[in-house]
């Protein structure tokens, strides 16, 4: 599998978690790839919020219902429980206040699906431990000074945050460097070490 495919393998995992026909809000929907896929394959009633106006215009041009907005400030305008699912795909690490954003996701949606890059992934640890440098990988190609990703966490850290905000983890999937799922029976520490990214299905 090439880099581009492994990179957004989380999108397929997210799609698999959603029942057909559900009402979905994708926060940080980018150019609309996931929304498009969900509408096509899962017939969802999909909406999006995206911070980049350029991306928003692309989304609307492809027929998606998307607005320009900031996850940190604009989620307050949505009424409680107005969606079946809220989605935050590879975006939480770029928010200024991840905890508040997660709480908003759980307020707006019956359930929330969050995918995130795992900073506890062994390749990350290696770069920091052996080279003493902030990790730069194919999936996270930014240097520390120009990265939009300002709040990195590990799978373990995220599980802790879920406990703090009172979210129940209904399902969790960790994906290794090849984009393969790590066995469900494996312990958390193993996920935290071998998981390059993880997808969580959360409930209030």
């Amino acid at each position, binding site marked *: 599998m090439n880099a581009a495919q492994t990179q957004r393998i989380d999108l397929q995992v997210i799609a698999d978690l959603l029942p057909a026909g559900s009402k979905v809000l994708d926060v940080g929907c980018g150019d609309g790839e996931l929304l498009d896929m969900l509408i096509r394959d899962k017939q969802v009633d999909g909406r999006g919020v995206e911070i980049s106006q350029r991306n928003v215009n692309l989304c609307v*041009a492809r027929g*998606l*219902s998307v*607005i320009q907005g900031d996850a940190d400030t604009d989620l307050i305008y949505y009424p409680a429980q107005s969606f079946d699912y809220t989605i935050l795909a590879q975006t939480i690490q770029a928010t200024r206040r991840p905890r508040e954003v997660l709480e908003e996701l759980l307020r707006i949606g019956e359930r929330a699906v969050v995918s995130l890059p795992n900073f506890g992934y062994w390749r990350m640890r290696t770069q920091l431990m052996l080279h003493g440098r902030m990790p730069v990988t194919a999936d996270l190609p930014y240097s520390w000074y120009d990265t939009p990703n300002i709040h990195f966490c590990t799978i373990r850290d995220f599980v802790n945050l879920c406990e703090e905000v009172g979210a129940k983890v209904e399902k969790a999937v960790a994906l290794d460097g090849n984009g393969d799922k790590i066995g469900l029976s494996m312990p958390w520490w193993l996920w935290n070490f071998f998981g390059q990214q993880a997808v969580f299905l959360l409930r209030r």
Partner: protein
Amino acid sequence: MAASRKKARNDEANNPTSPVVKFGPDKPLELAAGVKLAPFQVAYMTYGELNAGRSNAVLICHALTGDQYVASENPITHKPGWWEVLIGPGKIIDTDKYFVICPNVIGSCLGSTGPASINPKTGKAYGIDLPVITIGDMVRAQAMLVDHLGIDQLFCVIGGSMGGMQVLEWASSYSERVFSALPMATGTRHSAQNIAFYEAGRQAVMADPDWRGGRYLDVGAVPEKGLSVARMIAHITYLSETALHRKFGRNLQDRAALTFSFDADFQVESYLRHQGMTFVDRFDANSYLYLSRAMDYFDLAADHGGVLADAFKGSKTRFCVVSFTSDWHFPTEESRVLVHALNASGASVSFVEIDTDKGHDAFLLDEPELFSAIGGFIVSAARARGLRP
């Protein structure tokens, strides 16, 4: 002013070139001012064919100085339709697929009842005896036209500026009759600054001795000076500082040096004077007062107990809100207020801000990014409506 054009304009106010539907005393228009207007008439143009399911109708709402000739020649100016870049065969609003309706608003002067229309009680033009008209009144009259055309639900309602206000009023008051809505370069109310600019324009009209207390048509006069100043003021607000400066800079008009007079030394002065003078050829001064007033009075939140989201409660309409970066008449912030209210009401909404330096009038121009966004919106709405996109 060319006398023939003046006559043409007066004729168009009562007997327009376009089709017109007349509503008799049995079908009065209930005005927000608390009176019934009867009889009254709505002039309109249509393009394309209504399909068998009557589901492909697109209503175009025009702006303050617009008219029903959205995609065909204006009978007074003989210029092409004002939105032909968007509407026509093979265009984004494809008249081979959609049945496009564009009514002249009540209060205007191109054939729908307005201050230049003959008051049947006096045999003279209404002048300012016509009650003040609101955006709600315009839309109520349009709904009667849509009824008359036998259309239950409009596939899309589209408009910019004052037209955008009508779109919002449609979506709020006749939510179930609007499948999709495209308000552009507009807001849910006039800001104090907007009211201020239009008040300056109205005062210019009324200060012209030829306005004659609003009764100028009785004596065949026209407050040309006042109306052209009003147009000049408004026109500045429709353009951005950048665009104006790029177009004219400090260039001089047909001269090598300043004349030390109050002639139009600068190109921008000459341009504005031209805008003013051509406007009086085609527009009625009292209509300008009425329509600018209608915009000032529009306040969608106030109509719903101060809660804007309540204007769209339970709405199933698909919205696409459009703003332009350099529009200081209806800045993006106004659209954002609308979008937040639509979110709060749970409505389906897209929101695009187009990066342009062309100001408020950008919605009328050929902006590729604008067209690709609204094209995508229309196609996806058509698919959802079961129309051939």
